[in-house]
């Protein structure tokens, strides 16, 4: 076992243990099965999703307010367009070159799908295919900001 694997395992154990405590309401009778389940879940998660680049958790937390604020804007924006009698839409496509590793690309796609006006539809030769609700909206900077934030969340390989 490498150090990175142990570190990722410890992170995930804390996460799963917190989840178990929340689900079981911290019942004392649930602690033993919980410990077994947490150990099993960590083993399974390390098998299914081996750690590649360690996450910087504080970056993730720091990104959260921005993400929440934008997903509220995204919901308000699409609700406004849906309910407006004139239904202002100008749908179109944009191809966005992304330098993130495959896992990061999927995360960026998922995030963009909750942001105002953008929806990821998979990748084409390393570029993310993004559907826009309104091709006139200035979204390039928002997408670039999102990519930078996600890139900052993962440390470079060999660094952790």
């Amino acid at each position, binding site marked *: 076992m490498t150090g990175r694997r142990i570190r990722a395992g410890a992170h995930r154990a804390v996460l799963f243990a917190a989840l178990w405590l929340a689900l079981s309401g911290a019942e004392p009778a649930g602690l033993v099965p919980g410990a077994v389940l947490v150990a099993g879940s960590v083993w399974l998660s390390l098998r299914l999703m081996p750690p590649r680049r360690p996450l910087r958790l504080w970056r993730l937390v720091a990104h959260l307010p921005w993400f929440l604020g934008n997903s509220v804007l995204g919901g308000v924006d699409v609700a406004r367009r849906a309910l407006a009698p004139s239904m202002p*839409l100008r749908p179109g496509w944009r191809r966005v070159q992304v330098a993130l590793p495959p896992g990061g690309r999927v995360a960026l796609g998922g995030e963009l799908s909750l942001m105002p006006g953008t929806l990821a539809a998979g990748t084409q030769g390393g570029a993310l295919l993004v559907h826009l609700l309104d091709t006139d909206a200035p979204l390039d900077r928002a997408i670039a900001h999102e990519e930078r934030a996600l890139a900052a969340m993962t440390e470079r390989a060999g660094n952790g």
Partner: protein
Amino acid sequence: MIADWLTLAFGAVGLVFFVAGTVGMIRFPDTFSRLHALTKADNLGLGFIALAVALQMESLADIVKLAVIWALALLAAGTVAQLVARAALRAEGSEDRDA
């Protein structure tokens, strides 16, 4: 008392977003635009309803449970929207070839 009124207010706002998401799904012209409405509006609706219900909870564990439900729904919506969009794109491509 204040918590009850806030629950009503947040719940009502949540419902508005669910209605808007449904209206978008019916009115929007194509699959991709409809996905925008479904993922974004419905997630916000669920978020507000989770907030409304959280104000009625007595223990922190219950509130964490609600937060986990919302986070998992968010994750699922973001992922499923991408998968549906990709599938729709492929279906469109093959139709073009047939035509």
